[in-house]
């Protein structure tokens, strides 16, 4: 491949920005579907950081971690979306502020 060399700060800053966006989305949205999406964004940002780190050293480890993150994300989405269906059925809403049975 070409010898494209990107400053690590830039990649990591991008990852940070994406992560913050996801985090903000998580806190901002009340719809659980959007919250799940925000989670995906955050996971993705972290994956980006790992891949960048792997790229810095030219090692495979970063991509392997990305793979693991990928499987985590897949599992999480599968279960999460299952939950979304249940929530919709039980509470007749996707508003997480309404679903607060865990209040102490």
């Amino acid at each position: 491949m070409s010898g494209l060399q990107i400053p690590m700060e830039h990649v990591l800053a991008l990852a940070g920005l994406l992560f913050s966006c996801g985090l903000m989305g998580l806190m901002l949205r009340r719809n659980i579907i959007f919250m799940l999406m925000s989670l995906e964004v955050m996971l993705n940002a972290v994956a980006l950081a790992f891949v960048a780190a792997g790229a810095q050293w030219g090692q495979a480890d970063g991509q392997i971690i990305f793979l693991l993150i990928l499987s985590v994300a897949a599992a999480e989405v599968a279960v999460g979306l299952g939950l979304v269906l249940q929530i919709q059925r039980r509470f007749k809403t996707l508003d997480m502020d309404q679903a607060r049975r865990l209040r102490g």
Partner: protein
Amino acid sequence: MMATLFYLAAFIALLATGLALTRTNAAHALIYLIVSLLAVAVLFFLMGAPFAAALEIVIYAGAIMVLFVFVIMMLNVGQEGIEREREWLSARNWVVPGVLAAILLLELLLALRAAPATTSGVAVTPKEVGLALFGPYVLAVEIASMLLLAGLVGAYHLGRRFIVRRERRR
């Protein structure tokens, strides 16, 4: 040229993410999210991780997002749902998340002031990844497979009851 491509993709990723998270219509948001994921895949490719880029497209943008699409379709949120989303996105609700996220970002950026480095520019081939994956990381693969199995069972369990009830109601 390549560097420009990189920054362009980064910009697209950011922009798409921002748009995705501020949409009121879940389907629109999803499309933006897919765009963002594709942009990240480009970034992966440019950083010398073609295998990761491929997976990002196939699994993330493909499989996972399709799941979202299905669910959104099943829930079938109408126009009033969109109106409600708009209400919830009022400026007042932005303050605390925005400030916290901004502080965190600031902190992360501060933490990045460490020694300057660049990506090596050497591509890591799928072969290398595969060798490492089924070499030293084989335990991680096992764990991941367990996790996926658990996710499978969980999703089946949660989703099945939803479907069965619905059928019974019919």
